[in-house]
Every structure is written in structure tokens, then in C-alpha cells.
């Protein structure tokens, strides 16, 4: 299992990387390589050239910026796990990260790599979609950004064009004091691809009414998706039939089947885990500050 031959370049800047990519449509970016290298080894992928961006400082780091946390594309997943900044501001991402691969792959895998790879089961894209993150893309024209929901098109398919480089992910930070998150997933083994993953984040007011709530599901269909839980907003969460809401929101989801689980299974698990994630988020938010009812 050895890759087909390719050339290797390590440009000094994102601009240079974009130039190389634009000039050769068969060139591919490599960052952490934790997904790309197996594909190379099996010869599923056979680029002419690998453009190694993992050491580009301009793509690295975690910073707080205008109501968001911006994570540079080549920031390793383990660096986010260990980041105090992320821990405080992105509790949902922190809950999801332990499910990403296993420790050795998180040591090398990058946040941008996971985004660019767009696996329908991947946790980081799920959190990005759930929170409505923006994906920053750089190319010869400069940097633009795009909502995660538009960025992900299907399994391994994104809006990235030849010559584009995912530069950063801008996760919105919720500032409400009563914030709660929930994350659940089911997979055959803990470190496997999720059959279904569910993420939820909720903000409550002093009285326990929902100010904002989001629920996202991964692994069910071709890409991570948000489900509509807007009915919860303005409601007293203590009295709201959460599982009913999730059940109706997931009833007609398009779901895939594979040799491990059926589409029906995915729909059932989506309803169950979605409800569990939302319930967890609500419980956490109720426990956070304010008056617990």
C-alpha cells in the first residue's frame, strides 16, 4: 500500500500555495494528512503534487475576534483541545473534539483539514454547521468567507475551487451567561466515524426561557445539517416537549445506509441523540447561573 508518485512543495506563504494550486488542478493541499495520506496509500487519491501548508504561521493559531473565535486552518486539533481560549468560548467544540479520530490522529490532524475533507460524519464540520461558523477561504483574489452551511455540499464535496485554500474557521461565540451545550454520537467503536452525531447549544434568559437554540446532526445524510428548533425560542424550556420537537424535526431526514447501519437506524438515532444533546444543553444552561428552577 504505497502511494503513487507525486512531487512535494512547501511554499512560504498562503499566496504562494494558492498560486501553485491554481497552476495545477491536480495539486492538492496537505496539512495534517490524517485523512489524505490513507487515500494516497490506497491510491484513491493521486495528486501530481502535494502542497504542504501545515507550517504556515499565517494559518495557525486561535484568536478571539469580534464575537468569534477564529481558528487557523492548520491549527492542530489537539491544540484546540488544550486551548484555554477555546475552552471558555467554544464549549460545544470542546465537547466534540474527543470524538474526532483518536489521540494520535488529533495530534496531527488540523481543524482546517477536517473542514476541507467534509466527511459527512466528521465532528468539526458538524459543530461549524451547528453554530453557523464562517469558513474563510483564501485564493489569488484574497480572502473571502462563506457560511459553513453553504461551504459543505456533500460527502467530501465542498465549495472550494481549484486555487482555493481553507484559511480559517470563524466560530461565533455566544455571550449569554446561561449557556449550555450537548454532544452525543454513536459509532461502532468509540473512535470510528459516527453513524450519527448530534450537537446542541442553548442560551437561556434569567427566567429559563430560551433565547437561542441550535441543533445539528452529522453522519445522517451527505453532510452535517441543522434541524429546525426555532419553536423552542421564547419558550420556557422546563415545560417544553424537547423530544417531540426533535422527533418531528428528524422524521423526514434524508438518511444514508451502509453495511454497518440502515437509514432507518440513522433516523431513529438522530431523533434520540438530537433530543439527548438538546436536553443536555438545556440542563447545562439551567444549571449555569441565573435561577435554576
Amino acid at each position, binding site marked *: 500500500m504505497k502511494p503513487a508518485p507525486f512531487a512535494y512543495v512547501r511554499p512560504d506563504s498562503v499566496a504562494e500555495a494558492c498560486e501553485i494550486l491554481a497552476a495545477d488542478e491536480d495539486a492538492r493541499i496537505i496539512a495534517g494528512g490524517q485523512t489524505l495520506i490513507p487515500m494516497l496509500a490506497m491510491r*484513491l487519491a493521486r495528486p501530481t503534487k502535494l502542497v504542504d501548508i501545515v507550517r504556515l504561521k499565517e494559518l495557525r493559531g486561535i484568536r478571539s475576534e469580534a464575537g468569534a473565535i477564529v481558528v487557523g486552518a492548520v491549527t492542530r486539533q489537539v491544540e484546540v483541545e488544550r486551548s484555554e481560549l477555546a475552552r471558555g468560548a467554544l464549549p460545544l467544540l470542546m465537547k466534540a473534539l474527543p470524538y474526532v479520530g483518536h489521540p494520535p490522529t488529533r495530534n496531527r490532524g488540523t481543524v482546517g483539514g477536517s473542514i476541507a475533507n467534509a466527511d459527512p460524519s466528521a465532528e468539526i464540520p458538524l459543530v461549524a454547521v451547528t453554530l453557523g461558523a464562517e469558513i474563510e477561504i483564501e485564493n489569488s483574489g484574497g480572502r473571502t468567507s462563506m457560511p459553513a452551511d453553504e461551504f459543505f*455540499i456533500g460527502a467530501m464535496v465542498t465549495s472550494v475551487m481549484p486555487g482555493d485554500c481553507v484559511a480559517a474557521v470563524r466560530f461565533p461565540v455566544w455571550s449569554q451567561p446561561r449557556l449550555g451545550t450537548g454532544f452525543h454520537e454513536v459509532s461502532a467503536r468509540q473512535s470510528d466515524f459516527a453513524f450519527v452525531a448530534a450537537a446542541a447549544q442553548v442560551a437561556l434568559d434569567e427566567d429559563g426561557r430560551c433565547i437561542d437554540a441550535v441543533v445539528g446532526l452529522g453522519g445522517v445524510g451527505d453532510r452535517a445539517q441543522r434541524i429546525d428548533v426555532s419553536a423552542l425560542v421564547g419558550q420556557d424550556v422546563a415545560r417544553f416537549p424537547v423530544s417531540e420537537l426533535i422527533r418531528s424535526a428528524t422524521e423526514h431526514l434524508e438518511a444514508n445506509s451502509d453495511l454497518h447501519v440502515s437509514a432507518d437506524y440513522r433516523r431513529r438515532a438522530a431523533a434520540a441523540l438530537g433530543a439527548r444533546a438538546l436536553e443536555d444543553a438545556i440542563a447545562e444552561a439551567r444549571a449555569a447561573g441565573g435561577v435554576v428552577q
Partner: protein
Amino acid sequence: MKLDIGGSETIPGSADALWVALNDPKVLTRCIPGCKSMVEIGPDAYKVDMQLRVAAVGGSFEGEISLFDKEAPRACSIKVSGAGSLGHGNGTARFEIEPDGDHSCRLIYKGTGEIGGLVAGVGQRILSSVSKHLIGRFFAALRKEFEAPVSGAAE
């Protein structure tokens, strides 16, 4: 790995125009994702060369496409088979065209495919998603043929 495909697409063209387009190897070459050439090897039979790519995954395929059970201009069956570095596949589908006004029609399709070899052996988890995406790309390209006709498109 078996794949069931099926659905219907609205095409912004007349049923007759769609029929002509679907029988035109030039149109098909443009619409089939990754298709580099289609060479006629017999009546309604073509040899195709494809350079398929979905994200990082890609490979070259050689195969054949044939049309049969034609009921012009309303229905036909298509048979596709091919093999390449990623594996091999074959499938048949039945197309039916229903007029939907003067300048629009519906293309209803249903079929089954089978994918084997490497890509089925290591990628079964996302194979159906990827196939759906490719079919989607085909129809998007087909619609484009009618929205903004380029030279050589069906009239």
C-alpha cells in the same frame, strides 16, 4: 456494492429537445462528470474515457455506454459499465420523459448499479453519497445545456 438510484428532474426544455440531447454523445460527454470522450463503437453504443474526481479521490476509467429499449421520444434504457484504477462499476437505468408545458419536461429515472473493487472495499461508507453527488452533477450540467445553450448543444 449495490446502489439504487431514482428520481425525477425538471429540465428547462421541451421533451423532444431533451430526447435529442440524451441521444447526443457530444452533450453526454459534457454532462457526464469527468467524461473526456465518447467514441461510437456501434449503434447506440459508445466507448467512454473518464477522468473522475471527487475531492481528493480520483482515477481514470474506461467503459462503455449503450442505449437500448428506445421508445422515442419518451423512454429509453441506458447501460453503463466501466473499470479503472479505483474499481469497476456497471448499472442500468430507465429514463422516461414527460412533457411539462412547452418549454419544460420531467425526466424520471430509476435504476440500479453495482460498484466493486477498491472503492467499494474501502469506501462503502460514503459511496452512495458520492454517487448521488455525481448524478446531481450530471443533471446540473444537463439543465445548463438548456439554460445557456453552447455550440453543439441540442436544439
